[in-house]
């Protein structure tokens, strides 16, 4: 039911754990299926230089969090804001339909983190 890429990111997740003194944090929970994820970003001159995550959730929730960190590192904030749920799913060669909404929260956490960061610096 999961693609090889999902399983790879689930079994060997990238960029896991806390990031000390992050510049931005996004935290998203989905009460329906219980998933919860926290995304930490280091931002230097409008560019995401580090990203880490922690996730309580199913294999899809962990894999989407992991691949998102890879996708976002090196991007400007403008570029990062353009990453969508669909982009995350596509980067994993697809997700089962029932997981598209419930466990694909990483892009939301990213947008939240960047928006938090912007409102803090205003």
């Amino acid at each position, binding site marked *: 039911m999961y693609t090889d890429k999902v399983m790879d990111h689930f*079994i060997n997740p990238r960029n896991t754990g806390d990031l000390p003194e992050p510049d931005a944090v996004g935290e998203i929970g989905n009460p329906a*299926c219980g998933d919860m994820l926290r995304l930490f970003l280091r931002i230097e001159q409008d560019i995401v230089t580090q990203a880490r995550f922690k996730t309580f959730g199913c294999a899809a*929730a962990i894999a989407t969090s992991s691949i998102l960190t890879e996708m976002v590192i090196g991007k400007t904030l403008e570029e990062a804001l353009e990453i969508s749920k669909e982009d995350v799913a596509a980067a994993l060669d697809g997700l089962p339909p029932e997981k598209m909404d419930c466990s694909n929260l990483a892009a939301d956490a990213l947008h939240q983190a960047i928006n938090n960061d912007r409102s803090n610096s205003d």
Partner: protein
Amino acid sequence: MERIYLDNNATTIVDPAVRDAMDPFYCHMYGNPNSLHSYGIEVRPYLHQAMEQLYAGIGARDEDDIVINSCATEGNNTVILGIYFNLLKDTRRKHIVTTQLEHPCIRESCRFLEQHGVKVTYLAPNRDGMITAQMVKEAITDHTALVSVMWANNETGLILPIKEISEVCKERGVYLHTDAVQAIGKLKVDLKDVQVDYLTFSAHKFHGPKGIGGLYIRNGVSLPPLLHGGEQMGGRRAGTVDVAGMVAIGKAMELANAHLAYQNTEVRRLRDKLEDALLKIDDILVVGKRELRTPNTVYVSIRGVEGEALIWDLNQNGIAASTGSACASESLEASPILTAIGADKELAHTGVRLSLSRFTTEQEIDFSIYVINKAVSRLRKLSTSY
């Protein structure tokens, strides 16, 4: 990679002796028992023997009926829909009492009848994950036609008080059906001791093949067939008899009962060993008192570790288990058991079931303990909530 199967409440390996018993009926003895020639005639004694094994296996009396069918889903549908045509449709008895713990084939059959004016009470388990006779008693009204309560729960292994429930039903003149798929082969099912009107079982839960099951109907209790047609099964279930399947379910039943003592000593010992090892993990919860459960089942909830993620991690290491996690179900609903025992929202997504069989070895349990510990510590390191 060596694989370890700890999902025996979902289905079981076919015992090699059962496979051997079936084999001739796929080769040279392929006759239809209804035929008048030697091909048909020669298989009949084997069907007779299978029936004897089934009657002995559940303690049915000669005058009771056992109808062979395709699975417990068919048996359960036959009971629920049969009761509708017999009673609910045309009498003032328009009420069924069942539980939230039942298999979807009971739940969905009942929901279907609700669309036809039937009232259904779905009892919620108490904080111990149990349904008590008192709860059933309080739910029965003058309009109740049927009580349907499983004998043992597939998720937790909890054994429900069917004997006490049967006494309540007898007292109130209400039919009792029990789905015994998780009970056969794990505990003594003796209908001479416990009076039920209908009982369903399925071979693949006790080391028989998939696609063959049985429905017990107590003597004098009527039930119209779901499948109409030929005179097979005394007119109670039409369709050419699956000879090999019937031989198999008979043999599997005999073996299941022959191994009951082993289940309650050796399988129980291995389950307890696994459970004791899991209980050493911090913040872990086992549902249901050990002595109230079938000897092969343990259902755990591990804080910070989502059930589906743990199942995939174990699968990656060759261990097959299952989860009641909402994330693994299409409806995304949390398991009624975890909700019932008062688990908080997060814990309701962490249930994992490990179920052993008489084929499970000590070595497999030792390796599983090692793998589960590793998986739990890996997933907890990733988790926001631990």
